[in-house]
C-alpha cells in the first residue's frame, strides 16, 4: 500500500492521498494512502500512537495534514479550487462539509447542559433549520433505534457511558451523514457496556452505512468490517479482508501485534 493508485478511483467516498502529519518533530502520519468505498466498513487497528486517530481526525478536518490531502466524494477536505487556485475553506464551507460526516468520540462529548433528545435535536434544529415539531419525532425515532427512547429527557450525567455513547451515535445520525467515523468509540467504556455500543454499530453497518472504525475490538473488526487496515508508526503496514489479515497476516509487525492482543485477551479470559 506504499504506492498510491495511479488511476484515481472516483467511486471512493473517502480517499486519503499520501497524507502526512507532523506535530513539531514527531511524525505521526507518513504518506498514508487509503480509500473507502460507499457502504464499506473499514476497521483501522494498530498499537496506540500508530496514527489511527490522527488519520480519522484529518478526514474530519479536525487536524490538517502537513502533506498530502483527503477527499470526500471527490471534494478536497479543507480546500476549494477557486479560479484555478486552491484556497482554504471558509467557516461556512467547513461546516457544510462536516454536516455529511458523523463522528463518534472516545469520550462521547455529549453536551452536558442538554437532555439526550436535545443533544440529538441540536443539529437538525440549529444547523439544518428544521422546525422542532419536525426534528423531535426524528430524534425520538433515532433514540428508539439505539434503544434509549425511555431516556430521552435524561441529562448525560444521568446516563451510563454506554448510554451516552449511544446517544452520541444518534446525535451524529440525526444529521443524516453519508459517512460515520468512530474514534475508539468503546475504549472509555466499562467492559460490560461495550457490547451495547458495538451492537448499535453493527446495526448501522447492516443498514449500509459507510463507516471508518478505529478500534481495539478485534472481534468486532473481524465480524463486521469489510476490510481491515493495520497501522504502525504512522504508516499503513497491511490491509485486507478481515479473515486474511487476522488468520494469515503477511507482515511480521502485524503478526506480533495480533499475537500480543490475543495473548492479552486470553489472559483476561483465563479463569
Amino acid at each position: 500500500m506504499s504506492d498510491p493508485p495511479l488511476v484515481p478511483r472516483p467511486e471512493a467516498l473517502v480517499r486519503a492521498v499520501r497524507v502526512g502529519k507532523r506535530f513539531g518533530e514527531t511524525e505521526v502520519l507518513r504518506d498514508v494512502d487509503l480509500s473507502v468505498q460507499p457502504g464499506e466498513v473499514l476497521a483501522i487497528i494498530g498499537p496506540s500512537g500508530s496514527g489511527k486517530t490522527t488519520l480519522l481526525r484529518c478526514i474530519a478536518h479536525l487536524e490538517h495534514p502537513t502533506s498530502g490531502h483527503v477527499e470526500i466524494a471527490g471534494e478536497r477536505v479543507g480546500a476549494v479550487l477557486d479560479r484555478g487556485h486552491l484556497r482554504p475553506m471558509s467557516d461556512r464551507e467547513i461546516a457544510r462539509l462536516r454536516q455529511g460526516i458523523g463522528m463518534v468520540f472516545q469520550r462521547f462529548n455529549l453536551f452536558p447542559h442538554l437532555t439526550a433528545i436535545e443533544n440529538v435535536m441540536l443539529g437538525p434544529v440549529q444547523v439544518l433549520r428544521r422546525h422542532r415539531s419536525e426534528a423531535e419525532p426524528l430524534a425520538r425515532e433515532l433514540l428508539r433505534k439505539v434503544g434509549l427512547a425511555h431516556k430521552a429527557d435524561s441529562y448525560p450525567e444521568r446516563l451510563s457511558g454506554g448510554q451516552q455513547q449511544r446517544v452520541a451515535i444518534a446525535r451524529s445520525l440525526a444529521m443524516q451523514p453519508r459517512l460515520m467515523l468512530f474514534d475508539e468509540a468503546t475504549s472509555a467504556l466499562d467492559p460490560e457496556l461495550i457490547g451495547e455500543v458495538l451492537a448499535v454499530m453493527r446495526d448501522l453497518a447492516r443498514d449500509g452505512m459507510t463507516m471508518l472504525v478505529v478500534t481495539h475490538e478485534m472481534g468486532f473488526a473481524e465480524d463486521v468490517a469489510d476490510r481491515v487496515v493495520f497501522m504502525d508508526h504512522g504508516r499503513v503496514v497491511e490491509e485486507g479482508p478481515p479473515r486474511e489479515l487476522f488468520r494469515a497476516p503477511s507482515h511480521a509487525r502485524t503478526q506480533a501485534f495480533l499475537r500480543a492482543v490475543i495473548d492479552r485477551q486470553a489472559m483476561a479470559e483465563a479463569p
Partner: protein
Amino acid sequence: MSWNILADSMPQLLQAALSTLQMTGLAFLIAAVLGLPLALARMGPGLPGVLALGYIETMRGVPQLALLFLIYFGLVPLGIALRAFDAAVIGLGLSGAAYLAEVYRAGVQGVEPGQIEAAQMIGMRRRAVLRHVVLPQAWPAVLPPMGNYLVALLKDTSIASIISAPELMLRARDLSSEYFLPMDYYLLVGGMYLVMAWPLMQGTRMLERRAARGRLQGEVR
C-alpha cells in the same frame, strides 16, 4: 452619636445611595456587554487579538482614578465635557470590561475542547458553537467571579466622589465636614455600603456553591 443630625441627613443619604446603585448598575452593564467581544477578540488570532490584549493590559495597569480624571478633565480640551456621573460610569465600565473579559476568557477556556469538536462535527459554524455549546457551559463558571466583581464595583464607585460625581461617598464627605461628625457619618455610610453589598455577596456565594456542585457532578460523570 448625634442621632438627630444623622436622622435628618437620612433622606439625602438614601438619595445618594440610589445614585450609587445606578452608577454601579450602569457601569456593570457596560463592562458585561463590552467584556464579551473583548474576550472573544483576545482569544482570536491576528490584530484584534493584539488590540484586545493591549486594551486589557492597559486597563489593568492604569489606576481607575487616573482613568476617571482622564475622562472627566482630560477630554475637556477636546470639547468633550461630560457630567461627573457619566464620566464615572464610563470610566468604571471601561476598566470593568477589561476585568470581565478575562473572567469570560477563563470561563470559555474551561470548556472541554471535545465539546467544541462535537459541535463542529454536527456542522455548526463558529457562532453557533459559541452560542449553543460554549457559552451555556462557560456560564456557571463565570457567574461567581462576575458577582464578586459586582460587589467590588459597588464599593469602587466611591472613588467617583473625587470628581464630585453625586453618590453616597461624596454626600457623606459633604455632610461630615458640614457637621464635623466624620466618625458618625463614615460609620453610617460604611454600614449602608454593607447593607447594599450583602445581598450581592449572598447571591455570589449561592452561585459559587452551585458551580462547585456542577464540577463535582462532572467528575462523577
